């Protein structure tokens, strides 16, 4: 049975946040691309928070945009609220977060996919891969369609052998009662992939009309226009607020009393859940002393009354969920429209991937997103665009792209996954980035636009604008370094008003800007420019000058790392032939097969002594080769 359904350069299986970026990137690069999804009505669906961005994650969205991806543009068109977080902190940790109209978000993304050149979008359930001699050549759907391609990207999220659990009820299902993908999971095991069982969860949704908002605190969006994408020019001004309330002693009592009904504690759930988004029952058990927990009420869209109850993720039985809701101020009479649930699913152990996201076991096969053990839409999309780029470039015979840890959060994310693996659903945190001062929200374009342009995902027009911005930054920085501000009465007054100490002598504008109380706005007054400096240029000038010392320090660290990154390890290295490696190190190295000494040094269980031995071995090999010639 089965029929030939056509040939492509790239096939993307799945159309969630990873799949959409992968498919769009591949098609835009010029690869003939097919996207297959279980349900065309579920494209770019948000089964959990109706929200995009946040610390680290928001920076990823910017990075995706700088590489020519879609997530930033799509949320800019569909948000109901946008906020800049951590404005009181340093520039390295600022990040945007948007509340999405989740339905609009899907529709916009679907429209974009449908209208994309080189991209074919079909509904279907992929059950097997066509693999010959360890090389992936296509996919087979449950209806027998054989699609052929040079490369395949799997982005099946939490659908692999998904199971929903509520109380003592457990059934086979993808998120939000979608049909799960069971045969594909079994097929991956057949191919030799090691899978792990992960768990995540979601809270109940309630009807907005039944909420008493007077008992909650309002959380409005920022009143300044904001956007993720560097290309967005139109801003949504009509924003919807979120609301804040808290659990009560009564909530905790009910949970305590019914803990035995929780599948998390009855042993029914075996998958590993993420520590960073525990269920409410988990929070109460682990932090028993805390008198209350925050609950955010987030509208799911403009054309719906459904409200997401953030902070109340649970897999307790439905009737207990109703009781819990009734104990929360504002939700006493809330109508629960959907119950919260836990979901267990299969993920591919990500150390089975190269840093390109191609699998080591099957050539020309890539995986991206939650299937790789991550959690979060942004993490998925970040992998999606890299997998899409690499699948397309490989299909077109071009060199693949690996972002380093000093290039982007996406680089940190993928390096962590393929080097260290993960034993819980992986979430990006700013603390995972050792160079976070370099990986800022504001400079994602400066870091990555060049790469996006070279790959062919950034238009000439945008690129020229980018170059102009870069030039303007350098010019203005130069100007401020050479501009001497004299201690005139007017200057002293500005400084005094800013809370600084008066000048004793003339000072370079750049040096004055380094004072903590001074901003670019002040400097602009004291050292006026001949030309109008746009805000995004001013922002870069201010950050780059103000934090020059720290940035320089980070750059030096990066330079040191680069030396180790440049020490490549041949793919065919025989670790068994290296005497002196510790047993654990040898096993880990054989499993991860790092591409550079730097990557090897990040593997847990590989200690500095092993790295030295490895270096000596590589050096010996090099010398031996030279002397053999």
């Amino acid at each position: 049975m089965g029929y030939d359904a056509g040939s492509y350069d790239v096939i993307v299986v799945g159309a969630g946040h990873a799949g959409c970026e992968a498919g769009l990137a591949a098609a835009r690069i010029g690869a003939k691309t097919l996207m297959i999804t279980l349900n065309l009505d579920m494209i770019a669906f948000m089964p959990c928070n109706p929200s995009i961005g946040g610390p680290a994650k928001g920076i990823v969205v910017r990075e995706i945009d700088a590489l020519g991806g879609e997530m930033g543009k799509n949320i800019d068109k569909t948000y109901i609220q946008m906020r800049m977080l951590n404005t009181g902190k340093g520039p390295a940790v600022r990040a945007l977060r948007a509340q999405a109209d989740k339905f609009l978000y899907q529709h916009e993304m679907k429209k974009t996919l449908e209208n994309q050149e080189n991209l074919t979008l079909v509904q279907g359930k992929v059950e097997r891969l066509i693999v010959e001699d360890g090389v992936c050549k296509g996919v087979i759907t449950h209806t027998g369609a054989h699609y052929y391609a040079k490369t395949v990207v799997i982005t099946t999220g939490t659908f692999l052998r998904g199971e929903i659990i509520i109380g003592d009820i457990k059934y086979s299902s993808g998120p939000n009662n979608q049909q799960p993908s069971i045969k594909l999971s079994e097929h991956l095991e057949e191919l030799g992939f090691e899978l792990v069982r992960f768990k995540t969860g979601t809270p109940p949704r309630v009807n907005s009309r039944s909420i008493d908002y007077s008992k909650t605190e309002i959380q409005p969006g920022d009143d300044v226009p904001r956007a993720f994408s560097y290309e967005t020019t139109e801003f949504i001004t009509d924003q919807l607020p979120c609301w804040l309330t808290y659990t009560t002693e009564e909530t905790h009592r009910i949970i305590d009393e019914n803990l035995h009904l929780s599948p998390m504690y009855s042993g029914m759930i075996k998958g590993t859940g993420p520590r960073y988004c525990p269920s409410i029952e988990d929070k109460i058990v682990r932090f028993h002393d805390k008198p209350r927990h925050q609950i955010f009420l987030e509208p799911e869209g403009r054309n719906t009354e459904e409200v997401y109850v953030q902070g109340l993720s649970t897999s307790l039985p439905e009737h207990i969920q109703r009781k819990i809701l009734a104990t929360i101020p504002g939700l006493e009479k809330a109508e629960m429209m959907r119950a919260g649930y836990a979901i267990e699913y299969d993920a591919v152990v990500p150390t089975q991937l190269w840093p390109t996201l191609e699998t080591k076991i099957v050539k020309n096969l890539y995986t991206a997103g939650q299937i790789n053990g991550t959690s979060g839409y942004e993490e998925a999309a970040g992998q999606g665009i890299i997998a899409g780029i690499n699948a397309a470039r490989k299909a077109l015979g071009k060199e693949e792209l690996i972002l380093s840890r000093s290039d982007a959060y996406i680089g940190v994310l993928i390096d962590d996954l393929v080097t260290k693996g993960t034993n819980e659903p992986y979430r990006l945190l700013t603390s995972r980035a050792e160079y976070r001062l370099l990986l800022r929200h504001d400079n994602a374009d400066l870091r990555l636009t060049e790469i996006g342009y070279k790959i062919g995902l950034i238009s000439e027009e945008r690129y020229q604008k980018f170059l102009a911005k870069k030039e303007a930054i350098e010019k203005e920085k130069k100007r401020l370094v050479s501009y001497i501000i004299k201690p005139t009465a007017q200057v002293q007054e500005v400084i005094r008003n800013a809370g600084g100490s008066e000048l004793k002598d003339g000072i370079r504008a750049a040096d004055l800007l380094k004072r903590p109380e001074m901003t670019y706005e002040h400097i602009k007054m004291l050292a006026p420019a001949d030309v109008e400096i746009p805000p995004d240029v001013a922002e870069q000038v201010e950050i780059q000058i103000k934090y020059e010392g720290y940035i320089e320090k980070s750059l030096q660290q990066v330079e040191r790392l680069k030396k180790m990154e440049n020490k490549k390890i041949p793919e065919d290295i025989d670790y068994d032939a290296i005497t002196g490696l510790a047993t654990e190190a040898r096993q880990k190295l054989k499993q991860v097969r790092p591409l550079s000494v730097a990557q090897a040094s990040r593997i847990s269980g590989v200690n500095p002594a092993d790295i030295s031995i490895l270096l000596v071995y590589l050096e010996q090999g090099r010398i031996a080769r030279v002397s053999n010639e």
Partner: protein
Amino acid sequence: MEFDTIAAISTPLGEGAIAIVRLSGDEAIQIADKIFKGVGGKRLKDVPSHTIHYGHIIDPSSGQTVEEVMVTVMRAPKTFTREDVVEINCHGGLVSVNRVLQLVLTNGARLAEPGEFTKRAFLNGRIDLSQAEAVMDLIRAKTDRAMNVALSQMEGRLSKLIRGLRQAILETLAHVEVNIDYPEYDDVEEMTHNMLIEKALYVRDEINKLLQTSQQGKILREGLATAIIGRPNVGKSSLLNSLAHENKAIVTDIPGTTRDVIEEYVNVRGVPLKLIDTAGIRETEDIVERIGVERSREVLKKADLILLVLNYSEELTPEDEQLFEAVKDMDVIVIVNKTDLPQKIDMERVRELAGNWPIVTTSLLEEKGIDELEEAISSLFFTGAVEANDLTYVSNSRHIALLHQAKQAVEEAISGIEAGVPIDIVQIDLTRTWELLGEIIGDTVHESLIDQLFSQFCLGK
């Protein structure tokens, strides 16, 4: 000069990934060639000087391959010892390196004595007197087993102390991280500059305390600088000889060196003593007499321990009292010698002058009281100084270097806080401090910050 060829493992045992067996002497290359099999049958005697060669060490008696190596050939005179030198770079691991050394020794080399390479360099005019200290550094304190045990106990305490310090930093870091990654959580207190500087100052002070003890750590390596003082004819020379008896003295007898520079080392129950100005004692009997009390204070300043010798058979003199005065702020053991003669000294007055210092009565002539003296020295060092102040020794120079770097990092954090730099940027230096401290105890796993984050705070959707 006539020198045989010497060999030794010249890298610290058990440390480092690479171990080097070094040979020096006329036959160094010849001996190495007997056991080295290079690529393409290359012989070391044919290779140019200062080149490195890949190959294997073969046991010539069995033909068995012992080790994969890189061999460096350096011909005289441009070498460390000004002799022919061969260095065999082996993989780490004691067993294989020892086998290579054994092969070298069975094929004609002699096992070098500690510091002998440096000694040869010195003797061949390769290093000058000012570098002679390095000779002593290499010889170091010869430590016996008991000493090693004492050391390892201290290392255990050191790592415990550093772990505690790191945990304090980690909790602070986690707090900062939570503020960053979960800004909407109002139940986590916002870390302020004031809170942060308090932590940073604490960390700096603790590091300083550790660094102060590194002085004591240095003593373990370099010996406790000890001065024997006393009026003429109280028995200083006898004391020196008693301490140095039974081959315990590590006397450097390198010709051409003045005895002013090279001091004598003795090992007293695991405490290495570096006896200051022994030449002075031997030649003129009395350093105070020779250079005067005022100048002797300068010399005494260098001392970590003073052995003040009095004469049991004579009354205390103003000179004696002056000596007590000269060393009043130092660690002193008072030795009342010549108990074999009738007592004339006022012991009451001696105790008064000695205060808290231990007093030992001896008859060096009859070899009495020496055990008590040794006991006093070792207890002063191990239990007295160590336990009383609850100090932990930082003796390893790598550790000291890391502590200095950690201190620098935390000081940068402090000046950042004072300058009003945002906390998340200051945190870079604090993280660095944490990592550097981790390097001391071999623990730099970054993941622990994230573990701390989620165990310390309740977060989630």
